[in-house]
C-alpha cells in the first residue's frame, strides 16, 4: 500500500436551473483552445456542450470526458421531474454513437482539460463566462492513498495479457516488428 498524498480535486458544479441556454461557455472554450489562443472560435470544437431543448425546458451543460472506441452495449434515457432527456444526454464520452466532442473536420476526440495553461487560470474559462452562475468552480484538497499510476498502454496490455497470455502477446509483437 502506498503512502498518503495530497491531491487537488477540481470540480465544476453545474446548476441546470440557472442555465439560460446562451452557450457562452461553448464560445469561450473553443476560443481558448484555438491555435493561436483566441484567434478563432467554433462551438463545434468546444469541450463543453449545452444540450438544449427550450420547449421541453431541457438545459444540460455537459463536459467532454474520455474517448471511447466502442459505444455502450445499451443506451440510457432519463426522465427527471417529468422531463424526458435525450438518449445518453448526461454522458461525457466522445463516443462513436454521436458527433459530440469530436473535432468537426478530423473527428479526433475532444476532452475538457480544465483549461490547462501556464500560469494556471484562476477559474476555468467556461465558469468565468457563465456570469449567471450555472457553472461554478470549486477546488478542494483530499488525501488519497498513493498508487502507482499505470500508464494507459500498460492498462491496455494488461487487458490483453489477461485474455491471451503474455507469451502469445510477445510472439505477436515480435512478428509485427519484423513485418514493419
Amino acid at each position, binding site marked *: 500500500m502506498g503512502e498518503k498524498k495530497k491531491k487537488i480535486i477540481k470540480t465544476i458544479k453545474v446548476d441546470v436551473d440557472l442555465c439560460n441556454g446562451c452557450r457562452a461557455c461553448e464560445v469561450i472554450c473553443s476560443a481558448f483552445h484555438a491555435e493561436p489562443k483566441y484567434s478563432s472560435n*467554433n462551438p463545434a470544437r468546444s469541450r463543453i456542450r449545452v444540450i438544449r431543448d427550450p420547449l421541453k425546458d431541457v438545459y444540460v451543460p455537459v463536459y467532454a470526458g474520455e474517448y471511447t472506441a466502442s459505444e455502450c452495449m445499451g443506451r440510457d434515457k432519463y426522465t427527471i421531474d417529468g422531463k424526458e432527456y*435525450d438518449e445518453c444526454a448526461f454522458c461525457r464520452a466522445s463516443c462513436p454513437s454521436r458527433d459530440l466532442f469530436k473535432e468537426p473536420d478530423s473527428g479526433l476526440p475532444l476532452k475538457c482539460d480544465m483549461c490547462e495553461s501556464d500560469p494556471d487560470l484562476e477559474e476555468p474559462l467556461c465558469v468565468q463566462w457563465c456570469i449567471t452562475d450555472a457553472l461554478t468552480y470549486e477546488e478542494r484538497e483530499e488525501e488519497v492513498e498513493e498508487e502507482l499510476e499505470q500508464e494507459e498502454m500498460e492498462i491496455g496490455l494488461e487487458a490483453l495479457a489477461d485474455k491471451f497470455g503474455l507469451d502469445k502477446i510477445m510472439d505477436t509483437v515480435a512478428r509485427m516488428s519484423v513485418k514493419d
Partner: protein
Amino acid sequence: MRYAETGFNLEIDLTRGNIERVETDPRDTELYLGGLGTNAKILWDRVPPEVEPFSPDNLLIFSAGLLCGTPATGCNRTIVSTISPQTELMAFSMMGGFWAPELKYAGYDKVVLRGKSPNLIYLWINNDKVEIRDASHLQGKGAIETAELIQDELNEPKAQVAAIGLAGENRVYFASIEQGRSSASRLGVGAVMGDKGIKAIAVRGTKDINVAQPAEFMELCNEVLEYIKFRNENPIPGVMTILQGLGSPQEMATHDEKWHTENFMWGNSRVRRRDFWNEEIAKEWKETMESMQTRLISCYNCPMKCGATITPTGQPTYMMKCFSKLTYTMAAMSDLEFGFKIAGLAQEYGVDGYSTPQVMAFALELYENGILTDDDFPGMPSDNEGRFYWLLDRIVRREGIGDVLANGTYWAAKEIGKGAKEYAHNTIKKHEQLPLKLSMLNPVYFLMYSTGEKINITQIEGQFPQAPYPKREHREAFVKDWFQVPDEKFKQYFLDWEPRGENSNPYYPTVQMSCDIVDWQERMHYIDDALGMCSGLSSFPLKPPYHMHNYPKFISAGAGIEMDEDKLTQAAKRYRTLVRAINIRRGMRRADEKPPEDHWKKRFPELEKELLDTYYKFKGWNNDGIPAKESLHELGLDYVAEDFVQRGILTDSEDAPSKETSAETEKK
C-alpha cells in the same frame, strides 16, 4: 484571410433553383461594415424603385452582422432586409436568438434570395452543402412547429431554423419570421418570405470564425462582461424598472405592468387608464406570470436572459420576449392571462405582436361605429377575447374581412372607406406604432418619430434619458459615470434639462441640442444593426457596455479594419444615408415624416417645422428630406447623386428638387 466575416454570401435564385456561393468585396465591408450596411448597398444596387414588394425581383436578404459569431457578448442579430409590402419602403427587421452565428459558422455572411419558388420549399444550409427541399408537407404548419419538424426530419437538433407560419404563407402584411425565442416581426418581412415560397431556412455550421487581433479582442470582450456584471449589480435609480438595467428590455423578469397599463393606451390606442392598477390585479397578474413562465432564457452568447418560456394552461410552450406580453392584453381590454394565451397562438401563425393587436382593435372600433357591420363579421363571438381569437384566425387565413385587415390599418382603412381612415390613427409611414398618446410635445421624440426609417420608436431611441430628473443633484449623480457619451456636451444638455420652467419640453432640449441627441441615438442603432449587436446591450439602454468609444476597437481587433470614432461615424452616416436614398427613390418625402396627429395633445407647428428644417440641414438633406449632392459626395455616394439627377429627384445645378413634389405640405 477575412476576419470576423466569412467573406461569402449565398445567392439563391428561387425561380431557377440555382444556388451560388459568392465571394464579397472586402472594400464594401470597409465602407458599409456589414449587416444592415451591406444589405442597403445590395438593395440600392439591385432593386430599382419600380420593383414591387411581391415582385420576383424584390430581394429578401438574411444577414448576420459583421461581428456575429465572434466572442463579443450579445452579438447575435440577423438583419432581414427587403422592400416592405406595408410601407413599400425598405424594411429592416432584426431578430436575436441563434440563427446569425450559426450562418457564420456555416461559412456565410448573408443569404440573398431572389425570384420565387413555384412550390413551397425550405432551405437546408449545412456547411458547404446547401439544398432546396420540398416543404409541401409543412404547408399551414405553425412557425415553431415547423422548426421542430425540420430538425426532426433532418435529424439535426442543432440546426437553427427561421420559419414563417400561416400568416407569412398568406402574405399578411405584418407577418413575422420566427426563430425560437426571437422574431423579425416588423414591416412584413414574413410576407415577402411567403411570397417567395420559402417556409423556412435551416442552418447548421461547424467552421471557425477568426478574429484579427486575438489578445486585444478578448480583452475588449472581458471588459464588456465585467461592465455587464457591474450594471447588473448597480441599477440606475430614478427611472422606470425596465430602463434601470440592460437587456432588450427585461419585460419577462420584471413586474412593470403597472407602468405600462397606466401609461400606454388601451383598445385601438384610445383609452388611457390612469388608475387601472390595484392590489388585486397586481396579485392576479403576478400569479399568471409565475404559473405560466418556466424559465428566463437568453440569445446566443449573452447572459441577459430577456426572454422566457411560457406555457399557458392547456396550450403548447412557446418563447416570449419584450412587450408582446401586454400588447394583446391592452388592445383587447383584457388581462395578462389572455395576453399570454393569444400571443402563443399568434407566434405559431407568425404575426407581429405590435401591429396585430392594433389591427384587431381597429376592426372592432369600426364595428362599434357602424362602419363595419354584422355582415362583415359572420359568426363572430360577442365577448372581446373571443372576438380577438376569431379575428386573428380570419386575418392569417385572409378570409372575409380578414383579407382586408391583413393589409394593416392604413391599407384596410383605404379599402373600407366610409371614414375608416380616422380610425387608422396610429401609423407612421403606413406602419402601426406603439399605443402611446401623450400630452406635451417632446422635441427629441418628435424628430425620432418623424425621421426614423426603421419606423419603430424603440429602434431609434435610447442612451439619453427619456425624461429629465426632477432634482439637479440627481442629474449630477447620473452624469458622473456617464462615459458612454460621444461628446461631453451631452452631459450638460441633460444637467440643464428641467421638468418644468424655461428649460423644459417643448423648447428644451433646444432645436440644436435635439438634433445632436437624435443623431447620436440613431447612429448607435445603425452601428448595432451593421455589427449584429443586440440593442439591449448597446443603443437602447442607459449606460450600455458597448458605445462609441469601444466600438471602433472591436471592429479593428475583430475584423482587422482600421477604425476610429470618426471613421465609424462616417461609415454609419454613409449607409444610413443609403437607406434614406433607397426610400427617397421609392417616393418618400418630407410629408411622410410625421408622428400620428394625436400623438401629443399639445402641438407646436412652428417649432416642429423648425425642428425638421434644422435636422434635415444638420443631416445634409435638403428641405424635402433628400440627401443633398454635396453630402452624398462627402460620403462617397456620388453614384446616388447621379441616380437622383437622372431620375429628376435632384437637379444638376442645385440640390432643390426639380419638380413640385406631391409630398410638400408645410404651410409657409
